[in-house]
């Protein structure tokens, strides 16, 4: 999550989930917290009971809105205007937390005179290369003095200091603009801005919570950046009841990002070497990756340690620790780009493990079709699904599909041991409850088998290309004889390798501070170092929740078991709590160390008054009052220099690639640099398309996740079929009643679903102008298998990606809707007709939409009444 990474230093939620209960105000935007994370939401409810104000900003009135104190409707994809306007409000009314901003952010930094803002260039920043559709970041930098030190103005008066840049940049983001672009009533907006200001400062804190409602946009990273800037201005980062809660969707999605199964990164947020950066040798790679100042100065230690972990004794100083074993990136290899490559026959063999892109992928039909061009396809899962059975999908002719398909049965979480990292970066181990059903095996079992078998198959090879496989360390024998006999590897041993050990003695490394770049240590993922400090301890299995709510003995949160990140900022520059009420981590002058209810996210004994050394390297460059230790300069980044983000140093509003209106702020309609992949099998609606006049947004619902829930009858009966939520006004105009079949369409394709007509979907009036209807479709369904089914909304979504992380746009699109089912539909669709009646489509017969139903629910006894 570079939105957070580039602002604060780490790509993880800054908040410890239970800490939300300490907030005085919680702004939930880009998330349907209560529905997507019901159990986490209990802390929000607790905060509410303690008197906190809960604000929900969302295109739909959801189960979160139902219990929020303030609900504000917003047009999907216009969040930067909404948040930017709050920034403008704070700056114009001088409502930001001055001491915090001056000390802990780069607001006082002075930006280079060459930098040109969107206000100067009609929505573009300086350095845009129109041919390459990319920015040259040369001008996105600081003004430096002769010694090369960044110029700052502690008084924040300088016209080019970041704070004043901000004032100018967001000058036109006003309440009126919000009403005109977001469709949010201006009074409501102002009320929210005031509430945030009121509940921030020394004595009070406000927390933000977001989820994929912000990330899955062509400029999603910038949504999060805007929130980050806002929280820095309000002084809420690193403080109890503050911060930004990034709510992640899958049980181990944080872990799968930390110990990356992502093409562009190695475990611990280290970059994969790329030919485009000319990282051919270790030296070249370290040169381009290592930061001079801040914690990332340690990069070489972590890289060498990971290579030692991978290739053991074969990795020596002489051979660059086998750096050349690592494959080089030659471009974007992310999933959807790979899908396109697959369709074009580049990919021959595909492993798909515990994921169902055939239903949940963007341009789902293209995803399924792409599998046809494979030679072989391996799916490891517990249930039949739309992906593995792509060859017998509607409209496919098996006799023409050459792909060889393997389904390997997977054990469920209850049938294996392991560790998962939850949304607050906390590692928790789970034990094995029962033996896997039938032939099922854990994923670890399969990976272990393949690794060993491939080593055998390549045994004796002298071809240098096969060295990585032969030299790869791989000994995870389980200590339990029964498991060993089953061929089950020991996940504990894997975790111990990730934690790291001394190559000489094999002893566990206790802290990532002990890792070396001389090959004396090995660590598969430096950020997890400390979870297994010795052979007999696994903190992920710690299960003692006693003590303060930070529960430091329950599980283990990276880094170094810190619950709230950047918690140095919970104390003022002098090291004292900002207020008694918001005491969290502070400097204990007697003991000469940082202390509090959490593990300090700061060098433990570095005094607050430690001066910065302007010429120092690594941490010496930071003073004792620089809380953001991962950053070059130790402060929160309001302005992100040097192209750490490819699309903007300060977020600017662009309309989504597919929109219903023109960009009211700039003449630049949509992000100038988002990833376009337009082709015949991936067509785009026009930026504003009269054939697709309605906004389409997608989300998931409480009762469903995907294939894992669609087979469970208890869940399937709660939400048995795909549906779309539409507002009464649109429904009336189209003659659609709740429960009817409707068909949605985009340039990519069609899907059918049940209509759920509800006043919760409110038509928006943009200022005095356009009336906008938004249509919501859950993303949980697939049409081929299971009890709960229906077309996947993926069939409507073209592939277009964010320039920074290649995340797709699936939250704001345009579509059209018509009554009735689509032309051809699967025979075995859930097809029970909804009892015919004039139902009260809009919930209770109350208000203007009242209409007395004649009782569809009624079990008729012989005759009608």
């Amino acid at each position, binding site marked *: 999550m570079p939105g957070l990474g580039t602002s604060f230093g780490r790509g993880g939620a800054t908040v410890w989930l239970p800490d939300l209960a300490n907030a005085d105000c919680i702004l939930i935007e880009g998330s349907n917290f209560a529905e997507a994370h019901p159990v986490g939401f209990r802390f929000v409810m607790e905060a509410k009971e303690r008197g906190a104000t809960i604000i929900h900003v969302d295109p739909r009135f959801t189960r979160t809105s139902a219990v929020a104190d303030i609900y504000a409707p917003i047009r999907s994809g216009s969040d930067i205007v909404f948040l930017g306007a709050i920034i403008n409000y704070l700056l114009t009314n001088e409502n930001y937390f001055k001491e915090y901003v001056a000390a802990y952010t780069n607001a006082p930094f002075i930006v280079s005179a060459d930098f040109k803002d969107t206000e100067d260039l009609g929505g573009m920043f300086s350095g845009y290369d129109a041919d390459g559709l990319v920015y040259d970041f040369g001008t996105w930098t600081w003004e430096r003095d002769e010694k090369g030190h960044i110029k700052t103005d502690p008084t924040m008066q300088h016209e080019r200091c970041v704070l004043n840049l901000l004032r100018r940049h967001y000058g036109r983001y006003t309440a009126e603009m919000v009403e005109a672009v977001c469709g949010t009533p201006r009074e409501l907006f102002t009320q929210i801005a005031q509430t945030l200001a009121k509940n921030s400062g020394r004595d009070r804190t406000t927390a933000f919570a977001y989820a994929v409602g912000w990330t899955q946009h062509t400029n999603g990273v910038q949504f999060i950046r805007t929130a980050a800037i806002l929280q820095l201005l309000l002084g809420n980062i690193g403080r109890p009841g503050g911060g930004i809660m990034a709510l992640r969707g899958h049980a181990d999605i944080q872990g799968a990002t930390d110990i990356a199964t992502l093409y562009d990164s190695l475990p611990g947020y280290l970059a994969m070497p790329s030919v485009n950066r000319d990282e051919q040798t270790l030296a070249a790679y370290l040169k381009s990756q290592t930061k001079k100042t801040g914690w990332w100065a340690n990069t070489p230690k972590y890289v060498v340690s990971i290579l030692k972990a991978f290739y053991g004794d074969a990795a020596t100083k002489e051979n660059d620790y086998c750096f050349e074993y690592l494959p080089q990136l030659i471009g974007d290899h992310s999933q959807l780009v790979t899908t396109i490559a697959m369709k074009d026959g580049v990919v021959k063999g595909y492993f798909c*493990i515990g994921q169902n892109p055939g239903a949940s992928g963007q341009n789902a039909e293209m995803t399924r079709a792409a599998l046809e061009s494979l030679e072989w396809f391996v799916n490891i899962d517990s249930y039949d699904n739309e992906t593995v059975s792509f060859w017998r999908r509607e409209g496919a002719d098996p006799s023409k599909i050459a792909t060889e398909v393997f389904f390997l049965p997977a054990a469920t979480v209850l049938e294996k041991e392991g560790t998962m990292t939850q949304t607050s970066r906390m590692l928790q181990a789970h034990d094995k409850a029962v033996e896997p059903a039938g032939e099922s095996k854990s994923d670890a079992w399969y990976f272990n088998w393949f*690794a060993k078998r491939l080593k055998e198959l390549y045994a004796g090879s002298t071809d240098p290309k096969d060295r990585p496989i032969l030299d790869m360390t791989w000994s995870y024998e389980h200590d339990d004889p029964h498991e060993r006999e089953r061929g089950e590897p020991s996940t504990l041993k894997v975790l111990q390798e990730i934690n790291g050990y001394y190559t000489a003695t094999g002893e566990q490394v206790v802290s990532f501070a002990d890792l070396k770049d001389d090959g004396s240590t090995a660590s598969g993922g430096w950020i997890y170092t400390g979870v297994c400090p010795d052979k007999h301890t696994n903190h992920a299995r710690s299960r003692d929740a006693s003590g303060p709510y930070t529960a430091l003995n329950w599980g283990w949160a990276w880094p170094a078991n810190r619950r709230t990140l950047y918690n140095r900022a919970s104390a003022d520059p002098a090291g004292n709590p900002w207020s008694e009420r918001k005491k969290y981590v502070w400097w204990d002058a007697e003991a000469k160390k940082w202390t509090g209810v959490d593990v300090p996210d700061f060098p433990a004994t570095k005094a607050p008054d430690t001066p910065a050394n302007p010429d120092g390297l690594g941490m010496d460059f930071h003073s004792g009052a620089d809380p953001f230790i991962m950053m070059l300069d130790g402060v929160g980044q309001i302005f992100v220099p040097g192209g750490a983000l490819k699309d903007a140093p300060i977020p600017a509003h662009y309309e989504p690639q597919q929109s219903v209106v023109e960009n009211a702020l700039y003449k630049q309609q949509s992000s100038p640099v988002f990833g376009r992949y337009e082709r015949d099998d991936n067509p785009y609606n026009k930026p504003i398309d009269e054939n697709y006049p309605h906004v389409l947004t997608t989300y998931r619902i409480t009762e469903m996740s995907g294939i894992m829930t669609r087979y469970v009858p208890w869940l399937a009966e709660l939400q048995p079929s795909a549906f779309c939520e539409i507002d009464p006004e649109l429904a009336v105009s189209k003659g659609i009643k709740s429960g009817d079949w409707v068909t949605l369409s985009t340039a990519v394709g069609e899907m059918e679903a049940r209509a759920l007509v509800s006043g919760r979907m409110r038509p928006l009036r943009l200022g005095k102008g356009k009336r906008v209807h938004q249509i919501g479709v859950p993303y949980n369904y697939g049409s081929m298998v299971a009890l709960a089914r229906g077309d996947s909304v993926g069939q409507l979504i073209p592939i277009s990606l964010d320039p920074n992380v290649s995340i797709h746009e699936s939250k704001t699109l345009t579509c059209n809707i018509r009554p009735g089912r689509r032309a051809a539909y699967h025979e075995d669709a859930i097809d029970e007709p909804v009892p015919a009646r004039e139902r009260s489509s809009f919930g209770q017969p109350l208000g203007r939409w009242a209409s007395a139903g004649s009782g569809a629910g009624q079990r008729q006894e012989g005759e009608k009444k």
Partner: protein
Amino acid sequence: MKTTVDLTKLLAHDGADLREHVGMLPNVKSQRTQSLKARISGAKAVTSLCCYCAVGCSTLAYVSDDGKLLDVEGNPESPINAGHLCPKGSALFGLTVNEARWTTVKYRAPYSDRYEERPLAWALERIAQLTKKTREETFVRERNGKRVNNTLGIASLGGATFGIEENYMLGKLMHSLGVVSIENQARI
């Protein structure tokens, strides 16, 4: 139809005195009711995790002596969920114990219109061979003068639904094979 109810059982109230059976509102427990007991009493409780969203709810899986799953509920000790679960978490039992689940290898031959059962060992060996074959065919050492050591011929997808150890093993294996398209739900 076979007789299924033993009247003595129904009447019996520890040899109850008949007067308890007559009155305004007789309240007689059957033997079954008296001996009724939660199926998890005395069962082994194993600490596990919910595998759906990322909140990280701790669960307790109750297992019978013969190793059968009896029940899955929230773990009251967890600071995260304190014993509570959402509907998906509450249905974890149905995810594991479900006759719709596929617990054997399914194989679909090229151009075939059906799945066939195959031995696990056969399938694994076949996949290993195919992996090697494809790697041999598609591995690239150099691309316009620069070392790349990668193969675009193989790709892997998935990670967010299994453990960090498994992610590590998968990543390590794939990187060593030269695979670069290693992806998971983090972008989904």
